[in-house]
């Protein structure tokens, strides 16, 4: 059974954690594109980069060494410190 804890707060927020706020525009934002190193993911990301540039967003590209494992800490930290949002390509 999963562990259950008692809420220490005044319970003003939902019990489930909220997702981070979404971007309300793309213009002037920096968007990271993370290639998970799966065949043809780059094709999808190249197309996304063009579309994002058309919307006025700057794009930075990142790669995972292998699709089978989570991204290395350095990659996650680089994305978090350099980007406003990230898109991860899962496509074959």
């Amino acid at each position: 059974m999963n562990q259950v804890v008692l809420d220490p707060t005044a319970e003003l927020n939902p019990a489930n954690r909220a997702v981070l706020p979404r971007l309300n525009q793309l213009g002037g934002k920096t968007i990271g594109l993370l290639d998970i190193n799966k065949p043809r993911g780059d094709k999808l990301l190249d197309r996304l980069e063009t579309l994002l540039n058309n919307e006025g967003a700057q794009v930075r590209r990142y790669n995972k060494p292998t699709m089978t494992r989570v991204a290395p800490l350095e990659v996650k930290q680089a994305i978090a410190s350099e980007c406003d949002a990230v898109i991860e390509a899962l496509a074959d």
Partner: protein
Amino acid sequence: MTEQHDSYLVFLKRDCPTCVLVEPALRELESAGKILQVWSQDDPEFPGSLTAVGDDRELEQSYHWQVETVPTVIRLRGDKEVERTEGWDRAAWLNLFGTQQLAEDLPGFRPGCGSLSVQPGVAEELALRYGTSSLQARRIEIAELEDPLEACYARGWSDGLPVVPPTELRVIRMLAGTHREPAEIVGLIPPDLQPCSIEKIAINAVMAGCKPEYLPVVIAAVEAALIDEFCMHGLLATTWFSSPMIIVNGPITKAIGMNSGGNALGQGNRANATIGRALQLVIRNVGGGKPGGVDRATLGNPGKYTFCFAEDESEQRWQSVAQQRGFESQQSTVTLFAADGVQGIADQKSREPESLCRSLAASLLGVGHRKFAMLSDAFIVLCPEHLRVFTNAGWSKQQVLDRLFELTTRSGAELINGVDGIAEGMPEFVKDMQLAKFKPNGLNIVCAGGTAGLFSAIVPGWLASGDMGSSPVTKEIV
């Protein structure tokens, strides 16, 4: 009176010699037609010579019937308890079973053993498993692959250090530390002004690492923080450094092992560390007071994790903080002060009160700003060797405070804006006045510290003291 259709519940464990002893008596009663339901706590094969032995290794029946001792025999009429007896006492058994003679070859009396259902730690688990929980807090399920510590961080419940995940079992154990009802509301916690129950305080005390016996101190500290004069809302919101410092007085300090001696203001004592932290977590979690939110501190201070210690009350000739504030030495209290950090004062040469007062006064003038007057309050944390300078000369605490008040009173002309080439200072209109550094009652002394070292401390307070901000408050621990 015992009636023919009464039935009997019998609770036993093989590990109890008295339970083993009474087996022939029970066999005799069963043969005589008494209706027995035996519950065995540790071995369903025991007692082997009886017919109706139930397996109560899960202790559900023992919990339900609130068994404290084995053997316990309960006489039932229908499903209602009429009476019970514990241990082996022939006279009591004869009476309970309404019979004239029983197991004549046994001794007349043997005490029983403790029931497994009331072993340390077990009772709360059974209450959780079989009882009706009165706890009202929302249950939050942590995903299977999630580390509970990380889950607490992710939900924003931590001050930055790990918290103990507040499971229901831990909270039930914590609540055993107080006689107060979990649902009782102690007040509205700023800044969100949310109602705070004893249960919510207990949850946060668990997270802070408190033992149940600290809970009454934490509750008193929360109640003290909610006293209007303390101005907790403003204290949280200020850009200044301050945050609650908790001084604990009275017998409870020794009972729960608080530190008033060496390193009293430092790390290493669980009660000191976790009581102060629990108050901070209540403000954070129940009140919603977080850095970057309503907490606007420019720098803050390390005491915002925790700042709590006991006063050294061993010097009988000297009034404690609590006594000064109208409480008896036998009462346990918390006193809260809107405190900044700790500023050291070294004086290894003064052996006379006047010289030491002058030393202390020189350092006190720097509180807030050297050119400020009548703004911050302050506590001096007087170390034992400095205290001895005063007590050996027969000085009372009030004498010391009065002298410090005089020595820190200055001419307004020295303090006004621009003087000494410093733009900061007091307004022009005070230039012909004599200005005390501290408001009346704005300077206090508390005793603590190790026996070696002629080093005391100043704990300066919030610039907004007294009516315009915070005053020290004291609350009895009950």
